[in-house]
């Protein structure tokens, strides 16, 4: 096994009395697609926020290729090669599609400017299925296209680790198929990805490995088949459904 690109050790986040993430440990290896799953409110987005620097961990260590990044500012972590999308899509409303993608290409892990940034934005637009839509305004986009823009922006700095927070949520069945194929193609490209997802089909077909969280704690890990048949995981999900 090769060395972990990203490793979490005892990572904890408290919001006042609430422990949103409780002593989480896991490793993500080079080229691996790791599914981070669990019922609503189990701490998945908070975990991504801790990795991306949107929030600082209360305690614990986050290492990127052996270098500690826990608690650094988001821009520093981005420069070291962590990119993300947001559970609620965040685009730049004052800019068109092309500029939104370029925004990811200029200041991050891999930096380009001018013609090089434009060329990269065009390449990525094509890559995510937005070819020819570079000049569209953000408010003209369909939902899946807005998700595509955000994905292209996250890919623009050529990240070492890509964090996708429910990128497939809210898509209709046809779009979902397209979306799964798109992430599949990223996986084939050899990207290292953490995928937070509720869509079971996507988890089965995309993830090499899964970490399951419930109420902030890791309750299981293993291959998708293993964790999805784990009685405790089933209970966590069903418990959530009863609520």
């Amino acid at each position, binding site marked *: 096994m090769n060395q972990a690109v990203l490793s979490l050790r005892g990572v904890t986040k408290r919001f006042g009395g609430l422990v949103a993430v409780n002593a989480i440990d896991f490793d993500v290896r080079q080229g691996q697609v790791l599914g981070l799953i669990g019922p609503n409110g189990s701490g998945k987005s908070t975990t991504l926020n801790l990795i991306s620097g949107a929030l600082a961990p209360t305690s614990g260590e986050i290492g990127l290729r052996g270098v500690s990044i826990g608690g650094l500012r*988001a*821009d520093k972590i*981005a420069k070291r090669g962590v990119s993300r999308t947001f559970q609620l899509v*965040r685009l*730049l409303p004052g800019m068109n599609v092309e500029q939104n993608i370029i*925004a*990811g290409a200029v200041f991050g892990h891999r930096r380009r400017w001018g013609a090089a940034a434009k060329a990269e934005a065009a390449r990525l637009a094509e890559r995510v299925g937005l070819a020819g839509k570079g000049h569209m305004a953000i408010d003209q986009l369909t939902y899946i296209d807005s998700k595509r823009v955000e994905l292209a922006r996250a890919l623009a700095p050529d990240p070492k680790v890509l964090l996708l927070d429910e990128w497939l949520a809210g898509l209709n069945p046809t779009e979902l198929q397209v979306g799964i194929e798109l992430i599949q193609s990223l996986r084939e490209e050899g990207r290292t990805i953490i995928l937070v997802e509720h869509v079971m089909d996507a988890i089965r077909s995309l993830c090499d490995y899964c970490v399951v969280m419930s109420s902030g704690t890791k309750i299981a890990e293993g291959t998708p088949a293993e964790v999805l048949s784990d009685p405790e995981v089933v209970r966590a999900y069903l418990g959530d459904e009863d609520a």
Partner: protein
Amino acid sequence: MSSTEIQGFVFAALALLVAGALPYFGSDYVLSLGISIAMFTVLATSWALFSGPTHYISLATAAFFGLGTYTTGLGFESLPIWSLIILAGVLGAVLAALVGLATLRLSGVYFVIFTLGLAELIRQVITWGQNMTGQKGLYVLTDLTEAHLYQMLVALAALVFLVGWLIGRSRLGFALRIIGDDETVAAHSGINTAQAKVLLFMVSGAVAAMTGAILAPRYIYIEPSLAFTPLLSFQVVIMALLGGVHRLWGPIVGVIPFTLILETISANFPNQVTLFIGIVFLVIVYFIPRGFAGLIETVRNWSAWREARS
């Protein structure tokens, strides 16, 4: 460079020539209007460089302006004016850096209040210092004429437009636009948001201080309540918003009519000045949120659309 940019440059160069030549053909009254317009053009344009993209409303203009005024007031006997203008720029930038580092991490509302308080704080400190030394104000007696001051302001305005244009094309300008749209996205794209905001705020503060340094000789006698008047900060904000802060040329489109009307009103109805400012503010908020520049663009797009249809 695109053809619209070349057009813009030619137009700017012509405007600069005409503006710079004003003292040779205008009356004293026209020159004095010219000074007001040049002063507010510099202040509003540099204000918009920072506040346009970030949406942070700064009411600190008076603080920087007053700092510059006092730089000249205290130094004109020992140093040449050009060195005082540069010194004021440096002091303005340093003050802006300190204020920026302390406040730009805060949300917009706190920033507004802090910047308003800043001018008042400095004013109180200087008043206190003067009381301690038994002084009241400062006489600034130089042999600079109104025409000199005016031309220095026009030169500063040209510099501000050049710097603004360069920033607009730079990574810093792009970073500021991203920050203005979504600060979280900016940070996650690798932008040091605090640094970018502080840098732009420093530019804006330096320019306002330089303006104050240039204008000090015009007042002849300066005292804290004049140099640090909060009214100045509000006027700059309103003129910039009236013109439109999303374009480099926006503020000047607001400054010219506003200054002309304001001069007319204060000459004929001196008690109605605040009322006028209040009405302009309401008009901006309710009818032209993107200022005259936005209005002009809307009309242009609309006529282009009509042409395309016919």
